Every structure is written in C-alpha cells, then in structure tokens.
C-alpha cells in the first residue's frame, strides 16, 4: 500500500534503521529549517508534517528557491533541521550515525565538484563506500558495472568524469546513487540535462526500481509532465510549506499551477495522467516579418 498523507502517527522506536524490514515509513514531524545568517529568523521551511508510506516514486515540485533542495537536505542529514524531526520506521535520523544512514539512504545531487576528477568507474565505485569492506573490491566493481549497464553508459567506464557532457555527468551520478543500493533514494533534478528519450527512460526506470528493489524514490523535478506521468504521489511546495500533495491528478490542476508558479496553464488528461500545457498571458505579437529573420544552411564549394 503506497500512501502519502499530512497526518503523522507516533510509532515505537526501533534500534536498527530499516534492516530487512520490507515496509518503509518516513515520518516528517513539524520540520522547520532556516539558514544561519542574514534572515535567520525567516524560515525556509516551516512546520512541515507528512507521512510517506511504501516503496514508491514521489516527486517534489515547486518554484525556484522555494526550498525543495533544502527539504531533501534536511531529510538526509546534510543539514540539521532547526525544528521538528524525521523518523524512518520509528527511528529518528538524528540518532543514526552518518555512516549507518548512508547504508540506507542515497543521494543524487544536481551538481558535483570535480577538482580531482576520477574515472567514471571510480566515481560510481564511490557509491559502494558505505558498504565496502576489505576484499570486496571485485564484487563492488561488478555492481558498478551492473549500474553502468542499467543506465546505458558502459562505454564511458574508463573516461574521466570531467570530460563528460552535462547529461553524461548526470547519468554517472545516477549510477553512483544506484550503486549505493539504498532503500531510500533522493534525487535533485535528476533529468534536467537529459534528452527526451532519457527523461522518459530514467524516470520510468526509477519507478520500476521502486517496485523491483522495494525502494522509496523521492525526486525533485521542474518537469511537471514527466513527474505527473510517472509519480505515484506528488508534493507541491509553496511559501515554506506544503501547498498540495497526493495523486498527480489531484495536485496538477490549473488552479494550483497558477497559484504556485504564477503562470496560466491548461491541464488535459493523457492516458490517465494529467498533462500540462502552459499558457503565455503576454499577447505581444512578434510575428511581424517572417521573411526578414532567416537561419538557413549554406552550400559550400
């Protein structure tokens, strides 16, 4: 049963985070966060409570700067919430060491530093770090290879990370996140640099993996249609809190889009999923002189 809801229920503490527990239950209770500094009294996130139950694909939507990345960073302990707490199957993540957390949670960021670039294989191998022991290198490399195949970038295995295109970068980071074999995977705009084919393929794969590997996948997205097409549930952030959440057809509505993104939109239903068509309210007509603006191929020789 895959669900998502505003109410949270107290459940009793368990010592080991997830372990072999087939169920995943993420409880976010009164989560608040503010960055230290100038506006430290102003919360980026205030009092967010929500419960995510079951292995599923959840998308987080919202305009630039609303706090999507911050929200995810609060869930995976990159940042410490200034208020409230996050519990996974009853265990407060604050009580779990960073090392133990990394065995359960993976993270695919939207940028990565490459001051000291490694090869693609070595970069993906980093994903095995939380699990690796002495002598596990060959097994880890096999998992790396499996993930490279899954994402379709085996041919990049021996290339250097800093010599790749933006989309190839993103695929490598994804492979790394998957190599970590987490039970909960967070992704920050994982398809923003991918071409149309891979936007579909990768998002579909994330959904498939959520079923096959019994993994909760939470991704931030600016592509509302991709999110609507594949997500089991959607969280829409606005003004430091949750503006809407639930099934795609309940969240992706013209009213919600207009209120949160401040753009006009029509929503049509396509194969049972909402599909957004943006409307530009500005009606200035630039189409005055088609003959004048030309881009054309020139024959050489």
């Amino acid at each position, binding site marked *: 049963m895959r669900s998502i809801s505003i109410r949270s229920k107290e459940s009793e503490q368990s010592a080991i985070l997830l372990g072999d527990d087939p169920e995943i239950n993420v409880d976010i209770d009164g989560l608040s966060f503010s960055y230290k500094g100038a506006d430290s009294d102003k919360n980026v996130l205030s009092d967010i409570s929500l419960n995510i139950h079951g292995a599923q694909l959840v998308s987080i939507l919202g305009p630039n700067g609303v706090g999507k990345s911050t929200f995810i960073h609060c869930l995976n302990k990159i940042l410490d919430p200034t208020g409230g707490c996050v519990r996974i199957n009853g265990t407060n993540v604050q009580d779990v060491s960073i090392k133990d957390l*990394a065995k359960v949670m993976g993270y695919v*960021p939207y940028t990565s530093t490459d*001051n*000291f*670039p*490694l090869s693609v*294989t070595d970069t993906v191998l980093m994903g095995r770090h939380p699990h690796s022991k002495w002598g596990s290198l060959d097994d880890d490399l096999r998992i790396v290879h499996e993930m490279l195949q899954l994402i379709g970038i085996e041919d990049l295995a021996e290339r*250097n990370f800093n010599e790749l295109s933006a989309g190839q970068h993103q695929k490598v980071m994804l492979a790394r996140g998957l190599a970590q074999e987490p039970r909960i995977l967070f992704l920050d705009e994982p398809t923003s640099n991918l071409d149309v084919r891979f936007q579909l393929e990768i998002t579909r794969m994330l959904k498939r993996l959520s079923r096959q590997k019994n993994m909760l996948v939470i991704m931030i997205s600016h592509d509302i249609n991709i999110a609507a097409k594949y997500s089991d549930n959607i969280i829409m952030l606005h003004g430091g809190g949750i503006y809407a959440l639930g099934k795609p057809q309940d969240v992706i509505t013209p009213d919600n889009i207009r209120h949160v993104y401040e753009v006009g939109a029509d929503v049509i239903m396509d194969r049972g999923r909402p599909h957004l068509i943006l409307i530009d309210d500005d009606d200035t007509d630039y189409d005055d002189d088609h003959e004048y603006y030309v881009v054309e191929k020139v024959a050489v020789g």
Partner: protein
Amino acid sequence: MSENLHSDSLVERYHHLTMRKLLVLVVSVIGVIIVVGLFSVSAYDNISLMEAYRIIWDHIMGVEYEPRTTEWWADRFIWNTVMPRIVAAIVAGASLAAAGALMQALMNNPLADPYSTGISSGACFGAIVALVLGLTITSTSGQSGMIVNAFVGAMIPVGVVILISKRMPLSPAALILVGTALSYFFSSMVTYLLVITDADTLQNAYIWQVGTLDTIVWSSIPMMVVVTAVGSAFVMLLTRQLNVLSLGDANAKTLGLDVEKFRVVCLIVMAIMTASIVCFTGTIGFLGLVAPHLVRILVGSDNKFVVPISMAVGSFILVLADYIAMTISDVPVGVVMSIIGSPIFFLLILWQKKGYGTVY
C-alpha cells in the same frame, strides 16, 4: 552469462590499470636508489658506484671491515657525511608529499599544500625567535632549542584553525583563509625580527626559510622516520575516505563520511607530520604542492595511488635536488628544487593541457 563475462572484463581492466600506476612507483624508487649511489660516490671518490652499493648493503647487514682499509674509510665517510642527509631527504620528501596530497584532498583544492594552514610561517617564527633573540622554549641555545621552537611554532596556527573549526564548521576555503591570515601575521613578525638583526644571522635565517639538509645529523633522523612512518600509514588507510571527500562535503556526507570530524583528525595528523620535518630541515617549499600534482598528471586522481606514489616521487625529487645542491655547494636544497623543478612542472602542465595527459 554473457553479462557476467562482460563484468569480469571490467574488473580485469580495472586491475590492469592498477599495474600501470605501480610502474610510476617502481621507477621513482629506482631513481632514489640511483641517486643514493651517486651521492655515496661523491662522499668518497676512490670507489665505484657498484662498490658504493655493496658498502651500503654491507653496513646494513652489519659487516665490519678491517680498520683503515679503503672500504673502512669509504664506509665511515658515506655513513657519517652523506647518509644522514640522504635519509633525511628521502623521509622529508615522502612526508611533505604525503602531507601535500592529504591537504589537497582535505581542502578539495589543488592549490593547497602542507603549509596552507600557516605551518611554515609559524615554524619560521619559532625558529627565528631562537635564532635572532636567542629565546627558546627549552631554554637551551643552539640547534635543539631552535628545533623545539620551530615545532611548537608550526603547531600554533594549525591549533588555532582546528580550535575554530571545532567550534563552528568552516568550509575548506574558509579554513585556508584563516590559515592565510595567520600566515601573514607570523610572516610580518618574522620580517620585523629579520630587519633588526645582523647580516650573519640574517643569512642563516634565510637559509632556514628556504630549507636545507646541510645541518641534518643522525640524531635528527629517528623522530622524522617514526612520525613519517606512522603518519603516512595513517594517510594510506584513509585514502578511500579522501576520494569520497573529493566529491564535495554534501556528497561525502551522504556516502557516510562524517566530514567535519574527519577533517579535524586529518589536519592534526598532517600538522604533526609536517612540523616534525620542517623543524629539522626548514620550510622546504614546492615539494608538497608539486609532487602530488606530478603524480596526478601521470596516474590520475585516485588517492589510493596518489598518496603512495607521491611519497616515492617526493623522495626522489628531494634526494636528487639535494645531490645537486651538495655537488654545486652552498646552495640550499630548497632553491635547487625550485629552480630546476618549476620549469619542469611548468612544461608538464603545458604538455598535458595540449591533450596528451588526461587528468585536469
């Protein structure tokens, strides 16, 4: 089935690349051995290169010669004049290179070196207070007082950086900036002391600042060796974590590395390693920055290889530079290294920028 074959070939390729990297290590070690031979021949002219190796080997094996034979003299000369500085060069080169690689990885910054947190200027300050004012912590004058002063001086700026970063988490860039600020403070104090002193002291102080192995004696060696051995073993154990750190702090955290704690522990180790070299040799520059880069150009950025190979390359560079420094006499090794090393480094950067190398 075919999928398994494929993945075995990836595993195989990976190990094959490892072999190639080890080649650089072996070449540097052979380089060190050759220079050690040349060094020994220069200490006692009447022997050939092969005899020099045999005499060193015999000494290590505990063979005693008939007194006042050629071998006996050669052995005494080699062991008492050049061997302390050879060992010091090998150990200091390895230690500074390892500390440099560690620092660059810790700060995630290719411009970092062992002195980025102000170790060199702190050490200089300590040494020059002893040299100019005759004030020492141990209140003994001469070499030993200066060594202790330099060691303590080196630890002060790092201590401050560590104390600050324990109270509030600082980004690597902020850590380096704090170190730089402290550096400027100590450097200006040093400058002041040098302005008010006489010419002889000034020359000694300058030589100390560029680094020299002329003053190394056997009694300096044990501490250098022990700290370097323990420190570099520690760094070797952490190379996987250093790789994870190169992905950036946030990524490293989500891969299970407690970034802040890790950085503090490593800074302490790095400081002790560097201080225990610098207090004997003076602030030898260039090596800690350049050796890890040279190695990255040759073998890539995996710290599993960068750290040990940098140590070998660092030893080779320093022992070679010291050999040249000694043969042309009166030039401190730090100067030789920079004069010869910088153009080579410069060319290597251009060479790999042209696309022959693939690292940066």
